[in-house]
């Protein structure tokens, strides 16, 4: 395992160096070229090519850029970033140091979700062990609880002004970020993978993966499985293999949530053989996102599960943009009425209409993600939604088991 330690607890600097050797001293140009050739995609959710992102910051930097290692991980169903930071903090630090060198940054900020205590402690200890490498350039900032705290403009806004709400873009952080300087905001798993690619070359990463998929990454498997948790997979492994990695399903499953709350629902039988891979999933209108694979027990009503998730996402609006504040609240209310089998006459019709009206109408993509998830639910649970509009439920009424933080 490259990203998950065999032993429990945080890997020490000595163990890290023994396992991987010293950090290579590639200059910026060749390092970014390696990343581009590796095909590494960002692991925070959006899947943007990592090499291209580093290049964009490097081109704007004249030595005063900032690296913000994003470990906010506000996605309720994802545990992979906190596990990685808690288990392999030095690999994350390696990635941040390489990024700082590549983009010409003299400050590194580790932006870590305030509730991820083990991760923060491991990183703090690891940074102390690396004091000589870091020369006072790195520090930890606790990211406030909240789904949008990790959105990149929100992260920059928090560091600048103590306010973890997204800002109007452009300018994007790579243009003007922390302290007005070009800022690379990069998910911690992306940084860890970059540190491995820097050591082993792009061909190593390209050589991993099943079928046409390339590379490895972390996923979080939860719901109706025997052993929920974080797993390292070769991309191209299937949804069925993700279930097997988590000890198998512990009962009948009807649907699977892929990619997290900004991903989408899918029929589990149809997608059992789906390769977990950003490109294959995009081709099918799905998203790998941050690698969440959540199996919904068959006895849980999809409308009820949707109502809980939409209620959560509405509650997580930064409350700055009208369409997000009012639109998501209205959607959550109507979906809850449907779940309770006491809808108003046109609730289903309205959420269908609203789900097509919010995309692109916020400063950040929170409303976009929320309605994309709803649209997938309306497809996958189409019969359930129709039944609920008629005040009936097709599943045994039982509270949803979708965990909501």
């Amino acid at each position, binding site marked *: 395992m490259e990203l998950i330690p065999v032993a429990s607890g945080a890997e020490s600097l000595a163990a890290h160096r023994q396992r991987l050797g010293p950090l290579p001293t590639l200059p910026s140009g060749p390092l970014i070229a390696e990343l581009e050739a590796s095909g590494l995609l960002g692991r925070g959710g959006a899947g943007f090519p990592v090499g291209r992102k580093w290049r964009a910051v490097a081109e704007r930097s004249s030595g005063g850029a900032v690296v913000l290692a994003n470990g906010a991980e506000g996605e309720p169903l994802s545990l992979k970033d906190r596990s990685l930071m808690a288990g392999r903090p030095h690999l994350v630090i390696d990635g941040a140091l390489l990024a700082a060198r590549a983009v010409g940054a003299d400050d590194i900020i580790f932006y870590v979700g305030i509730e991820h205590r083990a991760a923060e402690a491991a990183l703090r200890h690891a940074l102390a062990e690396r004091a000589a490498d870091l020369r006072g350039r790195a520090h930890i900032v606790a990211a406030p609880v909240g789904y949008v705290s990790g959105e990149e403009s929100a992260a920059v806004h928090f560091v600048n002004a103590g306010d973890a709400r997204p*800002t109007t873009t452009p300018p994007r952080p790579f243009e003007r970020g922390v302290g007005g300087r070009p800022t690379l905001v990069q998910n911690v798993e992306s940084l860890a993978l970059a540190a491995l690619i820097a050591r082993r070359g792009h061909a190593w990463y390209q050589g991993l993966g099943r079928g046409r998929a390339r590379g490895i990454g972390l996923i979080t498997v939860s719901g109706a499985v025997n052993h929920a948790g974080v797993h390292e997979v070769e991309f191209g492994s299937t949804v069925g293999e993700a279930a097997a990695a988590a000890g198998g399903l512990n009962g009948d499953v009807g649907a699977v949530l892929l990619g997290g709350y900004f991903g989408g629902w899918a029929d589990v039988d149809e997608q059992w053989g789906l390769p977990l891979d950003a490109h294959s999933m995009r081709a099918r209108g799905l998203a790998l996102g941050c690698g969440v694979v959540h199996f919904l027990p068959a006895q849980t009503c999809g409308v009820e599960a949707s109502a809980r998730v939409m209620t959560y996402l509405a509650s997580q609006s930064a409350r*700055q943009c009208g*369409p*997000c504040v*009012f*639109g998501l609240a209205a959607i959550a209310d109507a979906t809850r009425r449907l779940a309770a089998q006491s809808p108003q006459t046109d609730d289903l019709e309205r959420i269908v209409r609203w789900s097509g009206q919010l995309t692109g109408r916020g400063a950040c993509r929170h409303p976009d993600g929320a309605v994309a998830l709803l649209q997938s639910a309306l497809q996958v649970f189409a019969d359930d939604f129709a039944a609920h509009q008629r005040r009936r439920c097709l599943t045994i009424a039982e509270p949803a088991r979708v965990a909501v933080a």
Partner: protein
Amino acid sequence: MGETLQIDRIRCDGHGLCAELLPELIRLDDWGYPMTNAGTVPPSLVEHARRAVDACPVLALRLARTASPVGRSVA
């Protein structure tokens, strides 16, 4: 080079004047917030669009030049 309408979603408070002055390109959602299409403003409507921009009480609407020639009138 054309111009497109851009809305600062954080500033916009849903006053709705833009939709009154430019109903051809802006309509309001169920909560009174503007919905626009992303395309270039047709030359015949640029003056009206400018009036809508000037009328916004919170300066949330603007006309931005787009580098892309897509949508430019060739008539």
